């Protein structure tokens, strides 16, 4: 088996008295495109910071290409590209100077790729960074992370400041980048549609814990909304496994359940002599139900 690109075992992070991350474990295989979804304060940025070695974990371990992330060696760092949520551009430079500055820090720099992306994304390189808009800064920041063709690309809210047209172009580029079987992309976002368009794996983070990790399709397959209409009163326990939300009236119940199997519908019909309707949910609905 390949060494996981990123691995975490029982990862925990406490800031002050608040436990920001709790018992997080996962392995990311090469070639994955992982979307990290979570609402405000869920711990997305903290998780990325710990994974990339900006911050030591309070408990557990995190590795990148097999190396301890907090003491990442130079060879590993060269394989990582990171786009932080808050850019680290130098305001008094022009975009071109900033790119040149970054290029000088890497042994390899793909000028052709950068020139193409500058054209496609319409990044104004001749203007001082201090006068660029939020979206232009974000594009430039992403270019800095792509130039050395990293094997692992980590993006923290990469499309938050982009307009719809720029976001679509940007995501198309991410999909192209992710087509390489050896390149891994991990990005956090609050825009569910972006994640659905790009990611093949999804992690849903809630209050510092990953409540779902796995294939996006599997998530959509396994979470359903079940509506049961019964002639008689429904029992308190329906025996449906893990229920995300439940609304039960006397003879009618509506539940959102995970780990759904198609055979369960027939079982329900038989047990309660009821009409059972099953509805597949979109990712946004699943996310909202998980946080209901």
């Amino acid at each position, binding site marked *: 088996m390949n060494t996981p690109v990123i691995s975490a075992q029982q990862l925990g992070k406490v*800031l002050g008295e608040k436990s920001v991350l709790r018992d997080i474990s996962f392995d990311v295989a090469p070639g994955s495109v992982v979307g990290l979804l*979570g*609402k*405000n*304060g*869920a*711990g*997305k*940025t*903290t998780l990325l*910071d*710990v994974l*990339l*070695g*900006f*911050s*030591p974990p309070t408990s557990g371990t995190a590795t990148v290409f097999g190396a301890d992330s907090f*003491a*990442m060696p*130079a060879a590993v*760092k*060269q394989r*990582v590209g*990171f786009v932080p*949520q*808050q850019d*680290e551009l*130098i*305001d*008094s*430079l*022009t975009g*071109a*100077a900033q*790119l*040149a*500055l*970054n290029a*000088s*820090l890497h042994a390899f720099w793909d000028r052709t790729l950068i020139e193409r992306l500058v054209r496609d994304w319409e990044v104004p390189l001749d203007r*001082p960074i*201090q006068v660029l808009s*939020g979206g232009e800064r974000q594009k430039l920041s992403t270019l800095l992370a792509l130039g050395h063709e990293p094997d692992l690309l980590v993006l923290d*809210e990469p499309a*938050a*400041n982009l307009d719809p047209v720029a976001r679509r172009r940007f995501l198309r580029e991410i999909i192209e980048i992710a087509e390489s079987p050896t390149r891994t992309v991990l990005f*956090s976002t*609050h*825009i*569910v549609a972006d994640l659905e368009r790009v990611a093949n794996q999804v992690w849903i*983070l809630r209050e510092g814990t990953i409540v779902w990790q796995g294939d996006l399709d599997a998530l959509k397959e396994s979470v359903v909304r079940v509506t049961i209409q019964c002639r008689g009163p429904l029992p308190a326990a329906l025996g449906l496994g893990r229920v995300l939300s439940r609304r039960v009236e006397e003879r009618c119940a509506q539940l959102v359940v995970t780990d759904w199997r198609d055979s369960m519908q027939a079982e329900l019909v038989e047990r309660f002599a009821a009409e059972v309707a099953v509805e597949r949910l979109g990712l*946004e609905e699943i*996310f909202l139900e998980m946080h209901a």
Partner: protein
Amino acid sequence: MNGTLRTALLFFVRSRVQRWFFALALLSFTARLLILRMPCACKRETSLIYLLSIIPAFSFAAASIMVSAGVFRTISSLRTVYLIPSARAKLIVGLLLAQILLAVVVTLIVVALGTSSVAPPAWGSPRGSFELCFGTTTLAIIAAQLIAGPSRIMAVVSGSLSLLLLARADFYSQPEIAGVPTADLLMIAALVAWAGFSAWYLTTGPIAPASAVWATGRALPLRRSANPAAITRDKALDTYLLGQPSLWLICRKPLFHWCIFLATVTVLEISPSLFIKLDHYPAPNFTGLITTLLIVAPMLSNTVAGNIARNSHSLWLRSSESRGALFLRAERLAWRAFVFFGVPLLVAAATAWSVLPHPMFAAAYFFALLLPIVPCAIYCGLLNFNRPSDLWFFALFLILGMGSFFAATWDGASSAEAICGVRIGYWAIPPAIAVLALAIRWFAQRRWRTIDWLRFRAPRREGATRGPLSNN
């Protein structure tokens, strides 16, 4: 009214260091009063307790001058002014209340300590003390705000100017002008100035400094960019650490402010003799000027080192260097910055010292204290990952540097066993500060090796979060 009072108090108790200094000042002042009531054979002026009672109060005042400028600038920001109703009114009345509080405290101190040792006439009465303090500080601060806009360094200048004016106004002015006591006139002038300033401040649009040269970096045109063809790896790393393509771009603004300050002090030293015709007016004394010039070197070194520490985050992944190697690079850069502007400043001060028309009191000792304070400034700065101003260094500088200097000069003048006018025992303090600098370096290096940048993350920029669900 509560909001206004809170705003006024914020100027004095915003930071933890201020609160500590305040508590220390209160304690030492109480102790001083108790000791005064005990029979003692020693002379009050040479008593160490007397000195110790002054240092915390002086430190508290100095810290408040620095922090209050930050508070003023924060509240003056456009967003605050537009979002919080009557923010400007609270701020402007708070500013007045702050000056009144300050004047009341100074008056109480003058009354409590007695007036036998403070010769100038106005200080002899509580009313005169209050009026002098209120008048000079209010006038100075309003002048500074008009010239500079809400600016941290200018408030330091205004504070220092106030101290100078406090002494000058009483020592050298006429006791009465047209039959009215000068202190009363000063008070009236301050109130009129405050009323005029308030009227402008409450009705103007965006608050902007009177002169564009004081504008912040964002408003200035780009002067220089790194040339893409000529960037070496080292240059790139230094640029990321400094957050600017050159050291000069970082240092020019504080240096410019300090130059203005020095020019102002020089004018103050020279000009009174031109228009105040008093027999007892002495020749100008530039000791304070030289001392200030010397202080710039460690202060600026601390600022640059703090900048470097705050920018280190961006190099963790980019540089391929370990935390330990990053510290060594940052340390080298901070020292290079000191050589770039600190050494010329020290040389300039030493040259000025040698050509002074009058002797500079305990200058050699001041130099000896200052040299080990420079590494303290650099390593304290390298420890300062999250704040634009380093109050810890400021506290250390005031207590160790200025405290030792005042103690030595106070004590040494009456001693026969002295080197360069300072008692021999005090010459042990500079090496002790050097040892402290080494300890701070060890601590800084240790902190860099285990630095958790997440704890020092800058506040997130507005507008970075949009969409159906916000970011975390």
